[in-house]
């Protein structure tokens, strides 16, 4: 047997004519050429910069290996920033997940007109991208000192939220603002999972005597739980890395990690590239952990639902 026919036996590609197409049969060179630009781009603009950045966290100004930058992360300012960032991310993730779940359940299993579901899904697609200055200003116009809701509450209900201690430019205010893209993100991700709750399961449970609460307690939520946990993780990572909204809303006054890093890069403070890199490393570790948790939990959940 000639080598050509051996290759033809082994190849998974279809049989065809033409000299250029003999490439199909042997090594898929053509395929590799097609994938090359992508790999090259990913290496150059994604993988290498990240690795380079991460490695420079372990290098001091003179180029020697050091752990000093990591140690410098222990300063009050940095620890404080991480603390605030983690708390805002956790708060916005938790409430975003809770409210998002409630809304998703309402539009999918709440027997509402089907037009509502598609409208909410489209809106969620838009709103989850609505971060940054536009969002910040939308909330200033709503809950700022002269915001619409603030004014209405004061004039119609006689209730001045600012006198009661509320301030939009604060932890609570920022969390509230972050919910605007966290909730839609939750709805988008959890909707398919809720769809996956087969109608037959609730019907079978009913024939076995279970009430709606018992269905959710024993079957509904246990099945959804991995997805919920995973999405919570994703929302956390999403909030942790967000900067534009915070910057627009609170300037540099609220000390969250991305803003700290931003300042470092801009050189607003003592230009300490090693510290900046260490900050970046810290951020990556946190978001990576959250995302890995998301992936692991999702895969386990999918195993059940074959």
């Amino acid at each position: 047997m000639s080598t050509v026919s051996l290759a033809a036996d082994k190849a998974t590609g279809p049989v065809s004519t033409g000299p250029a197409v003999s490439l199909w049969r042997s090594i898929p060179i053509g395929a590799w050429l097609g994938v090359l630009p992508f790999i090259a781009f990913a290496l150059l603009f994604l993988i290498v910069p990240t690795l380079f950045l991460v490695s420079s966290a372990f290098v001091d100004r003179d180029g020697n290996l050091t752990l000093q930058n990591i140690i410098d992360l222990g300063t009050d300012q940095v620890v404080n920033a991480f603390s605030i960032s983690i708390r805002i991310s956790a708060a916005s993730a938790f409430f975003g997940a809770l409210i998002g779940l409630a809304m998703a359940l309402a539009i999918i299993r709440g027997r509402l007109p089907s037009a509502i579901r598609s409208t909410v899904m489209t809106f969620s697609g838009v709103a989850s991208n609505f971060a940054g200055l536009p969002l910040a200003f939308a909330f200033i116009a709503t809950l700022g000192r002269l915001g619409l809701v603030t004014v209405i509450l004061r004039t119609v209900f006689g209730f001045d939220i600012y006198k009661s201690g509320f301030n939009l430019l604060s932890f609570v205010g920022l969390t509230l603002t972050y919910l605007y893209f966290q909730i839609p993100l939750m709805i988008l991700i959890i909707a398919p999972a809720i769809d996956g709750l087969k109608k037959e399961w609730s019907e079978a449970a009913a024939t076995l005597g279970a009430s709606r609460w018992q269905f959710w307690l024993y079957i509904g939520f246990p099945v959804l739980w991995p997805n919920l946990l995973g999405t919570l993780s994703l929302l956390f990572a999403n909030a942790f890395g967000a900067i534009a909204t915070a910057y627009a809303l609170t300037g540099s006054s609220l000390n969250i990690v991305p803003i700290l890093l931003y300042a470092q890069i801009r050189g607003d403070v003592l230009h300490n590239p090693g510290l900046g890199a260490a900050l970046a490393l810290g951020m990556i570790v946190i978001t990576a952990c959250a995302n890995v948790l998301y992936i692991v939990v999702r895969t386990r959940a999918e195993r059940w639902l074959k």
Partner: protein
Amino acid sequence: MAEDFLRIDKLVKTFGGNSVVKGVDLSFRRGEFVTLLGPSGCGKTTILRMIAGFERPTSGLISVEGKDITDLAPNQRKIGMVFQAYALFPNMNVGDNIAFGLKIAGMPKAQREARVEEMLKLIGLAGYGKRFPFELSGGQQQRVALARALAPSPKMLLLDEPLSALDAKIRVSLREQIREIQRELGITTVFVTHDQEEALSISDRIVVLNAGNIEQVGQPFEIYNKPATRFVATFVGTLNTLHATVADAGAKTVTIGTTIATIPALPASAVRGEAVALTMRPEAVTLADRDIMLEGKVAEVAFLGSVIRLKVDLGGNLVNLDTFNDQRTPPPAHGTSVRVGIAASDVLVLGA
């Protein structure tokens, strides 16, 4: 009637402007295995779901043991149900799935476990208690679904095309198992299917439905050999049609091509010269001598093992002929001329 276990009176269901169930009356005796048989869209599943409580009838009554359950919630009807898509709870193992109804009813743990063991033995899956649904085959999952439905000792068992999603071989063995278990427990069962072989093989009675109406109710033997309407005759089993003309209405004779035959089943309303359709089952058509003899040519031969299925062209009429395999005689070849014999008493005259 006092002995009715399940009664359905003038049941009607309309979806929007669409009438899916058009006034159905049925009564089921205790311990009976009744099949609702019909093509898709005939309303059989809708009727089942109304018995279960998942659809509310537009009008009509459903009563069990004399009590009206039409407005009762599904989780209070004490009915076991098995679905086409198994519907086992994916987050629980086999044992927990089977025990679910018992847990809801408040049975103590030890008793539950004993009952689960009992059910697992009943379905032939003893020792599978700790497995999860995704580890089981389709047939095994369906058996667990059956055990789950039967564990709380329901009054009735409803099965919605439970075998349609399974492989052919499993379908046959599982339907026999279902029937065996049903007999052993003596539980009233309503079975929905579109597969007439399934219906014929395991039912006590069959209800044939078409477009929301009942066409015929009866035992399998009756339904097959004495179909009340043309629909039942063609839907259940194969039916042959011979076109003939009435010769003498009084003597009940007709002409089939050039042959004259006497058909006892010819209705009194027949008119001389009228065209009639003579129908008979494939096994009523033989290669032996009978009252009516017709000449023809073999158009197709299908050797199916124990059964030989021939298609014979009788001067324009094409008939199916089923005969058993005879080891000594090979089936006739394609194109052979044959003489076909039909007993006049096997011929039915059905409406168009």
